[in-house]
């Protein structure tokens, strides 16, 4: 869970009516995310690790960490399949 992902510079996000449209300007594809999905993608852009995001969500919303971990992991895999993020490898100590 200390994996880091990166968001290519070709990924642009725009907010419309509390939902987020994410565009891959290289592939000319668009995806819609809700506010939580957009929050995760924005934090990936800001170089947070998955664990850091899990910690923040479970602390702020008093939610079980294991449940958060599972949900985030599924979502990350989906983002990766859609080409919106890439695995940047584990951070060096």
């Amino acid at each position: 869970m200390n994996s880091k992902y990166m968001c290519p510079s070709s990924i642009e996000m725009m907010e419309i009516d509390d939902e987020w449209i994410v565009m891959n300007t290289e592939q000319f594809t668009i995806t819609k995310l809700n506010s939580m999905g957009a929050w995760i993608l924005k934090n990936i852009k800001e170089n947070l690790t998955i664990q850091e995001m899990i910690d923040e969500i479970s602390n702020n919303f008093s939610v079980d960490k294991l449940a958060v971990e599972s949900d985030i992991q599924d979502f990350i895999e989906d983002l990766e399949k859609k080409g919106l993020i890439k695995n940047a490898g584990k951070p060096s100590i």
Partner: protein
Amino acid sequence: MYMIMIKIAEHMVEIKTDSKPILQWIQRHFKQVNSHNAIDLSINIKDGFGSSFTNYDVEILSESEFITYTRTDYKIKVDKMFQKADISVYNNFALKHAFTNLYSAFIIHHGWGLLFHSSCAIQKHRAYIFTGQSGAGKSTVAQLSTPRILLSDEAAIVNVSESEVKIYDSPFRSEILSTYELDYCEPAGIYVLNQSLEVQKKLIKKSDAAFVIMDKIFHWHHDSMETNKLLSMCKQLIEHVPIYQLYFQKNNTFWELIS
């Protein structure tokens, strides 16, 4: 060498060609003006290029100073500031498509607007834009809208800014040529066409509208920065103009519903 000035929306375009048939085609399809205003785009057009149309695939090559768009029946070479372009074409069909390609890229580059695959008719000084997949009825709706003024029957020129959206009279026509009665109009709405037994309209949520709009824009993707401009203008368009699903019969009763 023939040289004329034409006006497309707000833009002054200088045309140069050695071909009389090309000159005549331009004069038939575009608004010729006598003007000493600054030229926005200068185009040199030649015939005798390539071979007849095979498919819509356009190869795009972006170099340091030029962008080249190549299809079997046309080639466009334009400088990266979109000030001067050379178009070489096989025939009038190719010329029409090359012009659409170039003008679309020009207005996106300048962040001025979009070419939107749609027909557009005026009712009570407002522009009603009809779009949809191929065969949905854009041309049919244009014909059913007689005697209303049409601003487009194939590709609408949409000027987008932070404060407003304007729909300009488009020379990029399929069947019904413009009579240039009206320069531009503000939009009342965008209607995504669905042929149906019943006539009704449903407002599309703005966040879903992006999916409906994006594939209706004439755009040849070659550069993330340009695509970014397009995305930004799409957002402004969605924010300013309501977008509906329109279910209509093949008659003009939909006008009672939408206007």
